[in-house]
């Protein structure tokens, strides 16, 4: 694994995992989700990158502007900036790996952003959309409900004078400005025709959706909408194995 800074002025941070043994023709760009989902799944995606490396895939994980280890502290990111970040990361991965093909592997919001990037001209021959919400609006609504429940439950253990209130423009402690809300809401997991291979990775508790592409059922529930899981890591090894095996079978 190699940490690296890339993009204009080195403003983006990523972790490259090289394949063990001969490299495949496809390299995989892992697109995180955001906020509490990003934190919960961070370790799982580190482990998934290792599993993919063991099957010959080079991978790159990276943090969008204003999130994680990205240089920018201003969290008022824009959709355009995040799409541009995916473009930079895809270019970086292609240059580092020398791979012929790129597969965008996006988790939750990352799946929506990946498809937006592909529609905006980011060249990707394949995409694996992991628990993609049916729309950006629905994903935001689910997080806002978690936010409400989290504060309500937390306050049950506090005297009224110390009760915490959700702040407008924030979701579970992260800035979520109105402009971002408006631009993310219309996003959908629809893939452009340029994406030749499309897979939908669905956790055991994900809602059924009829979408183009091949559905791959995962063995574990993800609990994305369960407030009791927001402080827990999500590291189902069996899910990682299924994803890595499925992509190894289907991608060059």
């Amino acid at each position, binding site marked *: *694994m190699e*940490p*690296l*800074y890339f993009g204009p002025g080195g403003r983006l*941070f990523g*972790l490259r995992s090289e394949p063990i043994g001969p490299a495949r023709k496809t390299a995989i760009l892992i697109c995180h989700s955001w906020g509490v989902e990003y*934190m919960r799944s*961070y*370790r799982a995606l*580190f482990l998934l990158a290792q599993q993919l490396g063991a099957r010959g895939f080079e991978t790159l994980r990276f943090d969008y502007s204003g*999130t*994680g*280890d990205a*240089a920018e*502290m201003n*969290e008022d990111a824009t959709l355009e900036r995040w799409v541009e970040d995916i473009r930079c990361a895809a270019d970086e991965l292609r240059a580092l790996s020398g791979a012929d093909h790129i597969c965008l592997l996006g988790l939750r919001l990352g799946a929506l952003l990946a498809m937006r990037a592909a529609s905006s001209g980011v060249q990707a021959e394949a995409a694996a959309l992991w628990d993609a919400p049916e729309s950006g609006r629905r994903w935001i609504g689910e997080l806002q409900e978690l936010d409400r*429940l*989290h504060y309500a*439950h*937390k306050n*049950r*253990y*506090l*005297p*009224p004078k*110390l009760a*915490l209130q959700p*702040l407008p423009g*924030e979701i*579970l*402690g*992260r*800035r979520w400005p109105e402009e971002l809300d408006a631009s993310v809401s219309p996003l959908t997991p629809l893939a452009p025709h340029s994406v030749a291979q499309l897979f939908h990775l669905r956790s055991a508790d994900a809602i059924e959706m009829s979408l183009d592409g091949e559905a791959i059922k995962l063995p574990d529930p993800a609990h994305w909408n369960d*407030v*009791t899981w927001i*402080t*827990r*890591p999500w590291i189902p090894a069996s899910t990682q194995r299924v994803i890595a095996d499925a992509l190894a079978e289907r991608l060059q």
Partner: protein
Amino acid sequence: MKERAIQFGPERRLIGILSLPETVDPSLPAIIVPNTGVEHRVGPNRLHIRLCRAFARLGFVSLRMDMSGMGDSGLPPDGGRGDPVSDMQAAMEQLQRMKLASKFIPVGLCSGGNDAHLLARVDDRVVAAAFIDHYQYRTPRAFFIQLAQKLSDPRRIGNFLRRKWAELSGKPRTEYDPNLVNFFEQPSRGQFLGDLERFMRRRMALFFLYTGENQNVYNYADQLYDVCPRLRDYPLQSLHYVPRCDHTFTHEEMRAQLIAVLERWLTTHILKREDEDEIDVVESANDPGGDLPQDFPAFSPLPGKMLSR
């Protein structure tokens, strides 16, 4: 301010991000921020990034790191879970090799506070430490404050009755309790007091901050002084109670408040002190003496819950 990712330790399996000031002064201690709970090195709501960038503005080198098996750090090849003290010592050795510092200040929240405490206990390169929501011990006053809070709040009486009714009905407890995840076990009160005594004998600068989240255990400003009265008169300590902050500093203003008090502490107890005299070790931290001095207060045997975050 510059940032740089480094891999270090055995097999280079640990990872951290260095924040470097414009000009590095290797005579200053470097700050090490271990990850908190299961959240990787960025910290809850990117708190650790904000902290380290603020430390760099003050002139300190800092490293926020993932402990073994967390974030992007690997586990030991022997299949073990890793050891926080060894992980942080590997970080210290790396910074020494890079000639960035030879003295250190661990700054830790929650489980990170536990890691900082364990490191300070055994390594005399640690000249100061900041503990945020780490070990908490109930006192008689805390017990009565909590009782009064419960009795004066009809909502909590209702919660209590509902819980009791559910228990009597044999229903499993399913409600969400944000305190239920265990990340560390705190030492006995005697061990904690012994550690503080040794820290004070080593003239370590000590920073303690408690949020209002664990009202059932820590709920008034001077509580730590009641647990350890000798601390009150120790000139190199700084104790803060911020009841309007929660454990993960959810709101921006909470994070800003924490950064401001830590900056003040570092300026007063490290930067100004560095000007006055060299911080040195007056007694080995490896002093095994577990016996408490005779004049330590007796442990008050109130029924207390283990800190469970």
